[in-house]
């Protein structure tokens, strides 16, 4: 049980760290939303799945799975709503300068 949980948590932690680096280094709010919505959702999915397996089969595992499904559905919804508001309020996307 414990080894399966650690084998799920370590890749999830890798995805969370990659999402944080992308949040620091990407140039625009439209580019940062990719790092946040895609990578962060997968990292949270893997870490919470590892913690749910570590609990064993009980009510707590079911509760952690409910939180996992909630994050996995709601995180892209929030990112989509924020980016749609940014686009409709007239923010221009970042483009590379042509030489």
């Amino acid at each position, binding site marked *: 049980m414990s080894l399966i949980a650690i084998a799920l948590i370590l890749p999830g932690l890798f995805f*969370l760290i990659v999402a*944080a680096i992308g949040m620091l280094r990407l140039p625009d709010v439209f580019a940062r939303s990719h790092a946040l919505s895609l990578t962060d959702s997968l990292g949270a999915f893997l870490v919470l799945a590892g913690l749910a397996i570590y609990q064993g089969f009980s009510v707590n595992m079911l*509760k*952690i799975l409910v939180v996992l499904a909630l994050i996995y559905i709601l995180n892209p919804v*929030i990112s989509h*709503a924020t980016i749609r508001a940014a686009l409709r309020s007239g923010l221009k996307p970042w483009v590379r300068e042509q030489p």
Partner: protein
Amino acid sequence: MTFFFLFILMIILAILILVYLYRVVQGPTVFDRVLGLNGISTKAIILLVVIGTVYQRTDLFVDISTGYALLNLIEALAIAKFLEQRGSA
């Protein structure tokens, strides 16, 4: 050994919250701050579940994290709707 691993996981999650907090304070537009708050709340939910696993009270802390996730949804959608109706950022 597993307790030590979960302790290291808590420390890494706290450092990631500091990274997102830099984006919230520094962000050039309002939408950067909203995205940073979304990232902070995701890390806080995971941190609450890990704390519950460490202290053997998962039933208590998972309920708090469910409430935190729903509150995060309401807050982010309300801010997005407000900024979309207001026009220019």
